[in-house]
C-alpha cells in the first residue's frame, strides 16, 4: 500500500487510489467538480490541481494515482493562484442567477468562489446564452447557461443507468448539455443527476422554487419504498411554514451507504413522501357508528381495542400487521399478542399488480420491512385472516396500514369479512377504503414523524430517524400498542423506540447483539445475514 505525504501529513492508501481520495484519507479536501468516485475520470474541470514534488507544473489530482513516497501539497501559493484562475474560467459565462436559482446555498460555484475565488469579475462582454428552464423529464429541469459542462450527468446516464440519454452537443463555448431532441430523461433514476450536478443546471422540478435550502433541517432515514432500504436524508422545512404551501417534507436525498445504495436513489423512492403532508392524513381517532364517523379521544379508541382483547377469546381475534411497520412496532405487537395466545396473525397483502424491479436498486417487494415482519412472525398472507373472518370465526380484526381492497385479495371476500366482523380497527397514516369502512380508526404517524428500524432484503437492520413531529394526534404504532397494554394492566416498559429495540434484540435470536449505537448510520446485518455474506 503506497505511503504518501499530503500537506505534511503521512497517509497510507490502497494501491490505485487517486490523489483526491488519498488527500481525503489525510483529512484534506481537494476542490473539484467533474470527479465523482462512482464515475469514470473526466479531467475536465481542471479545479483539482495539486502540487506534487518533482513535477514541474500543478497536476490534476483526480487522474494521478498515489505512489509510494509522493509528496503532495494542496495549499502552495501556486495551487491557490491556479484555483483562482480556474474559478474565473468557470464564471466567465455563468449567469448571475443566484437570486432565482434553487441551488443557492448548496452550489459549488458559490462555495468555491467564496473560498478560492477572485472576487473581482472582469468579464464585461456579453455572456453566451443558452436555453433556460428546459424540462428534461418528469423530475429534472435544465438551465444550460448555468451548466459548467463537468459531464457528470452524461457519465451517470452512460455508466450507471446505461441509458445514454444525455450528451454534450456542439463545441467550444457553445457546448451544451442536452437530450436527443424529442426524447425524455425518463430512466427510473433520473433525479440522481440533480444530486451530482454541482450547480443549478440540473434541478428538481418537484422542489423548484419551494423553499431555500438554508431553511431546511435534515434527518437521516431509510426510504420505505421497497425492500432495498436505500439510505436517505429527509429535508424538512420547519422554519418557513408559509413557503412550499406548508409542505413540511421538502425533499428526499440519497445518503451514501457502500453496502446498500451507494450514492443513488430511485425516482419512485425519492418522490414517495407526498403522503406525509397529504390532505388525506388521518389526524384523530374516529369511531364510525351508523353511517357517520366522529372524532373520539385516544382513551376511547384504546379502550375499544383493550375491551375487545379482554372479553374475546384469542381465536376470535385477527391481526393483519404490515411489512411497512418498523421492527419496534411489530415487536410491540408480539408483546401484546403472545401472552394472550392470539395466533390469527398475518402481514403480507400481495399487490394486485406485481411491483416493478430491475437489476440495480428497485425491488418488486414495495415494503421496507418484509424481512423484519417475517422474523417477527407476521410473514403470513393476510388471506388466512380474511378467510377466518369470512368463516365467522373472528369477532375483532385489527388492520395496520393496508388498503385491503387495493391488493390481490378477492374483493368479495374482503367485503364479506367487513360485513360479518363485529369490530374492525384500522391503524394507518392516510385514509383509504379500509379506513373508511373500519369501525375504529387509530391514526398512525408516518415514517418521517418517528424513529425505528427496518430490516432490508439482505437482512441489514437500519435506523430511520424522526424528521418532523407527527401531524394531528397521530402516534407511532408501537406507542398505540403500548397504550393498549397499559389499559390491560401490562407494560411495554419502553418510552422510546430504542428501549423497545433493546428488548427485541434480547428476545429474538436473529437480532441478537444489535443496538442503535451499533447500527449507527450505515446499519448492521443480522447475524445470519452476515454469516451468509461471501
Amino acid at each position, binding site marked *: 500500500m503506497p505511503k504518501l505525504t499530503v500537506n505534511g501529513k503521512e497517509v497510507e492508501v490502497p494501491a490505485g487510489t487517486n490523489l483526491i481520495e488519498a488527500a481525503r484519507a489525510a483529512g484534506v479536501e481537494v476542490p473539484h467538480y467533474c470527479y465523482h468516485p462512482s464515475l469514470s475520470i473526466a479531467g*475536465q474541470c481542471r479545479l483539482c490541481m495539486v502540487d506534487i514534488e518533482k513535477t514541474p507544473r500543478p497536476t490534476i489530482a483526480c487522474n494521478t494515482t498515489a505512489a509510494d513516497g509522493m509528496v503532495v501539497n494542496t495549499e502552495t501559493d501556486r495551487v491557490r493562484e*491556479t484555483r483562482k484562475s480556474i474559478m*474565473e474560467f468557470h464564471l*466567465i459565462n455563468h449567469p448571475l442567477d443566484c437570486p432565482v436559482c434553487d441551488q443557492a446555498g448548496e452550489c459549488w460555484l458559490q462555495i468555491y468562489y467564496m473560498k478560492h475565488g477572485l472576487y473581482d469579475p*472582469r468579464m464585461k*462582454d456579453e455572456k453566451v446564452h443558452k436555453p433556460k428552464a428546459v424540462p428534461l423529464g418528469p423530475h429534472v429541469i435544465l438551465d444550460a447557461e448555468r451548466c459548467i*459542462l463537468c459531464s457528470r450527468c452524461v457519465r451517470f446516464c452512460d455508466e450507471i443507468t446505461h441509458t445514454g440519454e444525455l450528451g454534450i452537443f456542439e463545441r467550444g*463555448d457553445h457546448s451544451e448539455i442536452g437530450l436527443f431532441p424529442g426524447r425524455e430523461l425518463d430512466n427510473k433514476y433520473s433525479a440522481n443527476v440533480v444530486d451530482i450536478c454541482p450547480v443549478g443546471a440540473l434541478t428538481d422540478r418537484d422542489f423548484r422554487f419551494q423553499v431555500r435550502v438554508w431553511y431546511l433541517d435534515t434527518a437521516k432515514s431509510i426510504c420505505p419504498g421497497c425492500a432495498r432500504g436505500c439510505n436517505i436524508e429527509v429535508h424538512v422545512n420547519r422554519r418557513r411554514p408559509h413557503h412550499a404551501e406548508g409542505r413540511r417534507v421538502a425533499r428526499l436525498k440519497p445518503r451514501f451507504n457502500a453496502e446498500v445504495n451507494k450514492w443513488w436513489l430511485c425516482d419512485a423512492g425519492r418522490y414517495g413522501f407526498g403522503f406525509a403532508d397529504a390532505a388525506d392524513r388521518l389526524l384523530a381517532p374516529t369511531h364510525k357508528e351508523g353511517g357517520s364517523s366522529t372524532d373520539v379521544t385516544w382513551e376511547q379508541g384504546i379502550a375499544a381495542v383493550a375491551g375487545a382483547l379482554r372479553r374475546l377469546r384469542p381465536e376470535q381475534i385477527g391481526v393483519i400487521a404490515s411489512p411497512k411497520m418498523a421492527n419496534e412496532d411489530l415487536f410491540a405487537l408480539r408483546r401484546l399478542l403472545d401472552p394472550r395466545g392470539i395466533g390469527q396473525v398475518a402481514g403480507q397483502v400481495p399487490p394486485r399488480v406485481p411491483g416493478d424491479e430491475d437489476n440495480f436498486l428497485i425491488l418488486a417487494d414495495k415494503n421496507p420491512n418484509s424481512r423484519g415482519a417475517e422474523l417477527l412472525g407476521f410473514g403470513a398472507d393476510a388471506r388466512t385472516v380474511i378467510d377466518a373472518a369470512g368463516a365467522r370465526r373472528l369477532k375483532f380484526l385489527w388492520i395496520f396500514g393496508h388498503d385491503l381492497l387495493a391488493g390481490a385479495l378477492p374483493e368479495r371476500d374482503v367485503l364479506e369479512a367487513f360485513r360479518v366482523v363485529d369490530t374492525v380497527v384500522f391503524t394507518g397514516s392516510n385514509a383509504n377504503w379500509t379506513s373508511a369502512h373500519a369501525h375504529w380508526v387509530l391514526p398512525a404517524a408516518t415514517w418521517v414523524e418517528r424513529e425505528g428500524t427496518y430490516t432490508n432484503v439482505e437482512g441489514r437492520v437500519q435506523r430511520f430517524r424522526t424528521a418532523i413531529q407527527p401531524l394531528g394526534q397521530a402516534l407511532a404504532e408501537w406507542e398505540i400498542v403500548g397504550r393498549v397494554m397499559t389499559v390491560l394492566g401490562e407494560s411495554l416498559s419502553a418510552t422510546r423506540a430504542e428501549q423497545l429495540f433493546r428488548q427485541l434484540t434480547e428476545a429474538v435470536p436473529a437480532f441478537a447483539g444489535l443496538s442503535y449505537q451499533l447500527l449507527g448510520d450505515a446499519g448492521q446485518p443480522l447475524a445470519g445475514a452476515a454469516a451468509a455474506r461471501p
Partner: protein
Amino acid sequence: MAEIVLMRNFSNAESHTLAAYRAGSGYAAWDKARTMEPAAITEEVKKANLRGLGGAGFPTGAKWSFIPKNHTGPVYLVVNADEGEPGTFKDRYLLERDPHALIEGMLIAARAIRSAKGFVYIRGEYVQPWRRFSGAVKEAYDTGLLGQGFDVVVHRGAGAYICGEETGLLSSLEGKKGWPKIKPPFPAIKGAFGQPTIVNNVETLCCVPPIVARGAEWFAGLGTKTQGGTRMYSVSGRVKKPAVYEAPVSITLRQLIEMAGGVSGTGRLKAVVPGGGSAAILTADEIDVTMDVDGLKNVGSMIGSAGVIVMDDSVSIPEALMVLARFYAHESCGQCTPCRESTGWIYKMVHRIVEGRGHKDDLDTILDVAKRGAGTTICAFYDGAVGPYISYIEKFRGEFEALIPHA
C-alpha cells in the same frame, strides 16, 4: 544547392502512381527495412535526429521506443493527415503528389513498432488528397505491398481542427467527438481503441524511407546538431512566391523568405509567423533564427508545422490577432473549462478592440487570462492559442493601444 529529398518526385505529373514511384526510388527502402530488426530501424531513425514535423517536434525514434516491449496485443500506427494549422499545406502536397512515399514510410514504421494495422486520418476537407491517397493504397494492395502483414484503413475526418491533436485524432478515429484524452496514459501505452499506438505526421513518415535507404548519418548531417534532415516549409502571406519550399532545417528564416521571393506588399517586413498560427510571432529583426526545433524554442517561439506567414508593414497586427482569436474560439473542442470559456471571451475582447470599442484594461486582462490558462488544460491547443495572444500584444502593444479610446 541543398538536396531535395521530400519533394523529389513532385515535378512528375504522374508522381502519385505506383509506376512513377517505382521508376524513382520505388520501395527499395522497404525492401531494405524488411531485412532489418525492428529495433535496428528505430535506432536508425533515432540516430537520424528525425523530429516530429506535425507540430510538437518530438524525437520520432524515441516516440517509437515507448511502445511497451512485452505487449502481446495489437499495436497501431496512426498517420495524422488532419493538416489544419493555419499557414501549413505541406502534407496536402505529399498526399497528392507522393502518396507512395507515405505508404512506404508507414510500412517501415509499422515494422519498427511491430504494428499490423495502420489508420490514415485525413481531414474531411481534403477530398482530392483523399482520392489520390486511396488510389495509391489500392495500388499497393493490388500489388501485394499492403495486406501482407500490414493493413491500412483510410479514414476521413469531418471538420475539426482539434482532430489534428494526437489524442483528439484518436477519439475521432474511435467514432466520437474529437475530444483529446487526458494523459497519462500516453498513446504509446494506451492509444487508439485502448491499445499502444504511435501517431506520426505525414511528412515525418515520408522522411523514413530516405533515412533507411541512405543512412541516419546522412540524414542527420543535412540539418542541425539536434535535428536532422530537410523539411518542407509552407510559405505564404506577403511574399512574392508563396509555395512550399524544401530546405535543410538549418536554414534561417531570412533565407527562407528570400527563397520565396522576398516580401511583397509594401516590401517592408513587419513580422513573421514562423511555425503555423500557434507559434509566437517574430518581429522583423528576429529573422536570423535557424528554422529547426531548438532554434525557434530558444527565441521563445516554435517551428511547429513550419507554416511561415509573412507580414509586411501594411498588415494590422490587431486584425491578424482577431482572425486567429476567432479561429481558436471556433475550434476549441469545449472539453475543459479554461480553453472553452476563455477562447470565446478573448475573441470578444480582441474583436472589440479592432472595432474601436476596447477598454483600457482589456490588453492586460487578455495577457493575464492567457498566462493563467497556459499549462492548465487537457491538451496543448490552448497553449497554441496563448502563443499568438501573448506575443502579438507584447511585441506590438502600441498598435493595439492606438485602437483603444483613452488607452
